[in-house]
């Protein structure tokens, strides 16, 4: 009775920052309707996308997220009237910045999912999971976390490389 489940070598960690009024409720609706989607997303609830600081996205990547989803109410539907409009600009700027830094934007998805769009939630979460799964782990930030200044490193990569270069 269970659908055939594929085993993947890599299961990405997806963090979803969502507003409570629309997308969180939309995700609830997906549950009520028993729609199925990959179990990779971890939801962090906010009152409004307006509350979502770009730093959180950055932090999520730093702390091991392979993909980040940010989702809120459709324009005009904001419970707080304009929070999502402000968020939209903020995220437009932030993703341009990340792109310029060299973060692959395929790992960062923004969406509007209303409380009625359980199906869309499933679609967005599934798409991002699958895309990021295909891309593999977010190496960039994870590598940074392990890197040290040469002076502070007990055993620096440079030193390692030097040793290996010597016959």
């Amino acid at each position, binding site marked *: 009775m269970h659908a055939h489940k594929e085993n993947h070598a890599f299961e990405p960690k997806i963090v979803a920052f969502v507003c409570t009024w629309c997308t969180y409720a939309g995700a609830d609706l997906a549950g009520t309707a028993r729609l199925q989607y990959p179990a990779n997303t971890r939801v962090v609830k906010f009152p409004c996308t307006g509350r979502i600081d770009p730093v959180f996205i950055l932090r999520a990547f730093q702390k091991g997220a392979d993909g980040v989803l940010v989702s809120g109410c459709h324009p005009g539907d904001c419970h707080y009237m304009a929070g999502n409009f402000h968020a939209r600009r903020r995220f437009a700027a932030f993703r341009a910045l990340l792109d310029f830094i060299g973060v692959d934007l395929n790992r960062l998805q923004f969406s509007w999912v209303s409380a009625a769009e359980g199906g869309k939630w499933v679609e967005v979460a599934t798409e991002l999971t699958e895309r990021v799964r295909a891309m593999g782990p977010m190496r960039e930030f994870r590598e940074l976390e392990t890197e040290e200044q040469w*002076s502070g490193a007990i055993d620096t990569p440079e030193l390692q490389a*030097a040793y290996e270069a010597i016959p």
Partner: protein
Amino acid sequence: MPKTITDQNLRLLIDALVAEGKRVVGPRAAGTMTLYAPLAKGEELNLGELPRRSAKETFFPLCETILTYERDKEGVRVTDVDPGTIPGTVLVAARPCDVAAAPVLDSVFSWDFKDEFFLERRRKTTIIGLACTRADDACFCTAVGLSPNDTKGSDLFLTPLTDGGYRCDAITEKGEALLATHASLFAEGDGTPAPLAEPSLGKLDLDRIKAWLDTHFEDPLWGEIAERCAGCGACAFLCPACHCFDIVDEGGETKGTRRKSWDACGFGKFTNHASGHNPRDVQPQRYRNRIMHKFKYYVDKFDQRLCTGCGRCIRACPVGIDIAEILSAIGTRDQEPGTGKD
């Protein structure tokens, strides 16, 4: 009997040291500048200009891990970093103004608390100093009592010769040992030393400066200087002698790392107490600390000064603050105890 080494052999020496498993640190080109950095091979040695950062990070890293912790229901498990794992290092071609700071720093790091991270690095490092032949208008080593060929702190000292190559003088046993191990790369003999650098600033009367500082904790001068100060850490971070550090825990509730990294007295949050109170609340107090620490407190405590005249703070200051100029001014100031408020 002095020895000499050709430039080519100096580079071969580096290769040989690397092959022994030593970490060899020396001036290396890094983008638009030169930095002291590990050299993979002798060719990388770049003697063109004064490295942008001082050599102090060889002993006092920008950032180093002290311990890591994990915490769960059972409690906290701490894993200390063993300073014994610090690699054996040779610091090559370091300028006298950088090298001279090392023994000065020994005093504080081996004072009441023995900083094993610093001391272990010092123990494991052999320093090959290099006499300086080029000064710019920010250099003032001679003004603070050093010289472009000062061997203070060096184990082995290189003096550039007019016809290329270097004269090598072993200053310490470590230096002797290094000469002995790699004798084939050195030749017996002497040569004509290339002309030394000539910093333009005249000798400062450091005792007079100290005397003034002794009595001028409060003085309008501090306000005048610091009005301009932007409060960054460029001066302290580039300084070979500044050694303040911060210890922070990075990570979360369940696991993390305790790290030690450079701090600077110019920062607004320096000495900020957990209560929110800051005894050095305004920039003049912080700038005063910079001068006092270098030319009074450290003198009182260790009879040494925390300045080698390398001029890095002068070159790097975003707002043109010039410590040599300030010292000159203090040197000519009235010695009457200050009454002004900062």
